[in-house]
């Protein structure tokens, strides 16, 4: 192989692999990225059953019900409209998870329309302050959420 030739082959292989990785990433990101929904968005255009998404809003006052096993909680998340999404979560609740507080639930919709949360993010988890709650303008739910999740100082 000529000297220039080998270098060219190496460059072509490297570029091909990186572009391949980029295309794969782009394709996977479209499918696997975790979209953020407000309750009214989820009510209007629900995500596919089982698709991992995030739901952010306000815990509806009076809606928190703990099941008999002591670790499963059901509650409703509301936003700017009257739409409320039922959420079920099994696990240890964030400390400042109370009625009327802002919350972001990570999880997916089940076939019966209940949002099964695998993780709840609230003020307790300063490490993951829900970014989605920031800068949403005057929307009431987002504002309340931001007050309870971000304004720590």
């Amino acid at each position, binding site marked *: *192989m000529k*000297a*220039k030739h*080998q*270098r060219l082959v*190496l460059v072509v*292989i*490297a570029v091909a*692999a*990186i572009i*391949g*990785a*980029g295309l*794969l*990433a*782009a394709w*996977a*990101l479209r499918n*696997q*990225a*975790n*979209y*953020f929904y407000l309750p009214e968005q989820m009510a209007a255009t629900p995500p596919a059953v089982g698709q*991992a998404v*995030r739901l952010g809003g306000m815990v509806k006052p009076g809606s928190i019900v*703990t099941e008999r*096993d*002591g*670790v499963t909680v059901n509650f409703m998340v509301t936003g700017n409209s009257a739409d409320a999404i039922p959420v079920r979560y*099994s*696990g*240890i*609740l964030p*400390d*400042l998870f109370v009625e009327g507080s802002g919350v972001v639930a990570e999880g997916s919709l089940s076939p019966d329309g209940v949002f099964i949360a695998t993780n709840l993010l609230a003020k*307790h988890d*300063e*490490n*993951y*302050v829900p*970014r*989605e709650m920031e800068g949403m303008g005057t929307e009431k739910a987002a504002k309340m959420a931001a007050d309870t999740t971000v304004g*720590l*100082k």
Partner: protein
Amino acid sequence: MTAEIGLAALWLAAALAVLQMVSGFAGLRAPADAAHPLAIYTRPAAIVQACLAVLAFFMLLRAFAVTDLSLKLVAANSHSMKPFIYKVTGTWGNHEGSMLLWVGVLAASGGLLARFERRLPERTIGATLAVQGFVALGFYAFLLLSSNPFERLPVPAAEGSGLNPLLQDIGLAVHPPTLYAGYVGLSVAFSLAMGALLTREVNPSFARVMRPWVLGAWVLLTLGITAGSYWAYYELGWGGWWFWDPVENASLMPWLAATALMHSVSVLAARDALRTWTIMLGVLAFSMSMLGTFLVRSGVLTSVHAFAVDPERGAFILALLAINIGGAFTVFALRAGAVAEGKRFAAVSRESALVFNNVMLSAILAIVLLGTLYPLLTEAFDVRVSVGPPYFNPAAAMFAIPMLLVMAVGPLLRWREDKPARLQFELALLASVAIAVIALIAVLGDFPLLPLLGLGLAPALALAAVLPLRGRRLARVPVATWGMVIAHFGIAVSLFGMACEGAFTEERLAAVAPGGTEQVGDFAVTLDSVAPVAGPNWTAIEATLSVSEDGGPPVILTPQARTFWSPPQSTSESALLTRWNGQLYAVIGNQTEDGRWQVRLWWKPFVTFIWLGGMLVALGGVLAIAGRVRVDLRRRMAAQKGAERRADLEALGAQPVPAE
């Protein structure tokens, strides 16, 4: 006074960085044989600058140690009631302090380079130090103009507002400084690459100078990532060890680039091949360090590490990033064509195995980079997304698995050219081990694909790691080769830990009344009592769990739910029971209305192997450095002895021969 001395030292250091840059570049303009009159200042400037920057850092350290509340930074991030150790580590637990640490380490490594490196041509060292000065100057400007750590308050605060309790942990004492030292080690590699490119000295002797810096940076990054992963594991109380959090990715990306660079610089040193590729990776590795700093410091991504959400600072770092990286790639584009072609090699050879792995590492880097930046990109279009394990795990594995396969075979191949037929036995052995293990485990149970592949690959990789020692006298194997063997073995150990954690973890989540017992794995966990406790700056609910393994004598675990009062925040302190074959992980939650307590338990088989493997990898790196340094010292001593003997002979020869 402390703060004023620190600030003055910082300004002086910035001025010296200018001198270092100007005199270094002046040296480049002089003709090859004549020294430029300004060039003599480069080394002294670098050394004095290092002393000043370190002095500035120690001044801030002192201000934190004595809790000088007239300093804005101390008042905002410390508290007089904090334990002393966390007062000190709090110095770099904030934006300004950590940037000062960055600059301090950067200047110190430049000073070391200026003081001790004599192997390279003076012009190359001059150019290297000039680049180093240029990079440092950007950070000095950043510190002095937009995040001055020594800013005084008009009226001293009565009390500080405390430090994020999650960061009040011994993990913080070691984690960021280790990572920063690693980032900065890569900046030296970057400066050396630029210096060599500018003076057309891209050759094996340059690679031998660069190698210890790359290895050192890589060892520190490995340790930093390992420590960070363990910290997240026990401090966040979520039972996971890697979250693909943007900040974790920010440390992983330079590591991937550094791993590639380390291998490619070894090829350049040993075989004089991959010249341009090594330079390219040098630029890439430092770009990733800068990008990591940008992501963490600018607040564009929110996470536990993002202390400041300040658009001005973000813009500043972004500008620095653009100038440094843009400049580097411009120089690269202009000069890369002038780098002579290195030695060639066949398609089946150790070089090409290394090239393949370099490319795979770069591809994983691209995957992680795109995944980390994607939420920022979509936000520009007002779509809010987050990217997590469902993306990262399969996409990264798609490149990691071929890389691991080639890693098993690569060290067995010969340099320059080899025949696959020579390795028939080894290949068959490794393949049969992997396939047998996968088949066995697939029969035994239903496990996810990735952990299954990991379980099969791990023993094959462990075996492959020690195969290069076959048929060699162990006492005569070079230390650096031991380093490679141990590092590759460490990868296998770590992979085994990850796969076991993924496949065999058992979880139990329940509300337990005092006296009640839950079973997880082989352990019976009884909730004895729950009681309030208090620490120096927190109060907590502490559960007493007695854990009995297979009916054996009980061991007491005390997980806590802590509430800090300055700043007000809660953390979950997990309790761990470590066995040789895994860890029991216990977290206490809230009390239910009927008086039971939420308890979350995990039995994680072999999870400790993840970090054990990481430490082995780092140990391998240390051995590689030690081996190289030893060979280098011997060579120097031999050269010195030879020179002495020649001088002696000449002296003898000059004497008139005495008559018999």
